[in-house]
């Protein structure tokens, strides 16, 4: 494609369509390297531990008695990421987004989960109706507990192990990532059909 002759609207289309995996993966790798260049290590779940420590529970639970203030930079990254999410969803999206496999959509229909049609999240799990369903509220909280407990037990999440750890050729990270996928496969293939 020759950008020189591109209309402005064409450039906007490139931005608002789903970004290609190769470009996105490269940019995520660059985010990690950039943080390394700033003297930091990329890892999002550390923020959860810092959030716990902020409440002062470190006085009674030693795990939360650490120098969480050295992680303040990570909160700033999170703040930026939240603003980025807001910008991308409100100004850089269009109806062509989240064009997942039609087979996946058929399978979702059997679980009574709505098709994306440009949305990032299904209403069945995240829409306003869920507040009237104790089951759905519990599912979201339980999912969060598994994520928080699991990432701290494993010492990292997708960013800390899959991206940072694997890039640094860490064997423990490979074990954790295999664990992530085994858990994910069990949930997607065997447990989700029982829940929905």
């Amino acid at each position: 494609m020759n950008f020189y002759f591109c209309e402005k609207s064409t450039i906007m289309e490139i931005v608002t369509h789903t970004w290609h995996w190769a470009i996105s993966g490269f940019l995520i790798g660059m985010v990690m390297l950039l943080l390394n260049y700033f003297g930091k290590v990329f890892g999002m779940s550390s923020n959860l531990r810092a959030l716990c420590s902020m409440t002062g529970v470190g006085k009674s639970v030693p795990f939360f008695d650490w120098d969480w203030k050295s992680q303040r930079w990570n909160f700033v990254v999170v703040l930026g990421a939240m603003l980025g999410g807001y910008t991308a969803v409100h100004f850089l999206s269009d109806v062509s987004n989240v064009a997942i496999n039609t087979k996946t959509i058929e399978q979702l229909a059997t679980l009574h989960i709505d098709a994306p049609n440009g949305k990032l999240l299904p209403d069945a799990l995240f829409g306003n109706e869920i507040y009237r369903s104790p089951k759905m509220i519990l599912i979201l909280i339980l999912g969060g507990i598994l994520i928080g407990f699991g990432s701290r037990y494993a010492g990292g999440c997708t960013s800390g192990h899959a991206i940072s750890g694997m890039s640094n050729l860490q064997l423990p990270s490979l074990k954790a990532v295999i664990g992530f996928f085994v858990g994910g496969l069990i949930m997607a293939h065997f447990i989700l059909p029982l829940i929905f």
Partner: protein
Amino acid sequence: MKAIKYIVVGFFFGIVLTKCEAVSWYRIYEMFLFQSFHMYGIIMVAILTGTIGLQVIKRYEINDIKGNPIVIPDKEKGSTRYWIGGLLFGLGWALVGACPGPIFILIGAGFLSVGLILIGAVLGTFIYGVFKDKLPH
């Protein structure tokens, strides 16, 4: 202001993760059903980019912004914690379709129900902290 560079990197990260749809529950579900290469491509290219970058940093002894050597600490040796912790994390990841980065990004984007996942995630982290010494690592 030192904080500006972290805001900018975070902002960029939030846009990339949203625009490649790694924050989407649908994309995570599709990935675990092996019905698209999209997410696998993102993860593999990110690791490849990171691996090459870290090798370049090591070979040319590139220093960080303050002039200190860039050292990324090794992960603790062990197995149990990685297998079990990883498995539990994976169960949660596929259930609610978000890992810690996307949880924050989605809340910022205005999906307030994702706040329930955040409450759970902080609670889960707290539970780990309480039982840490009783768990096999």
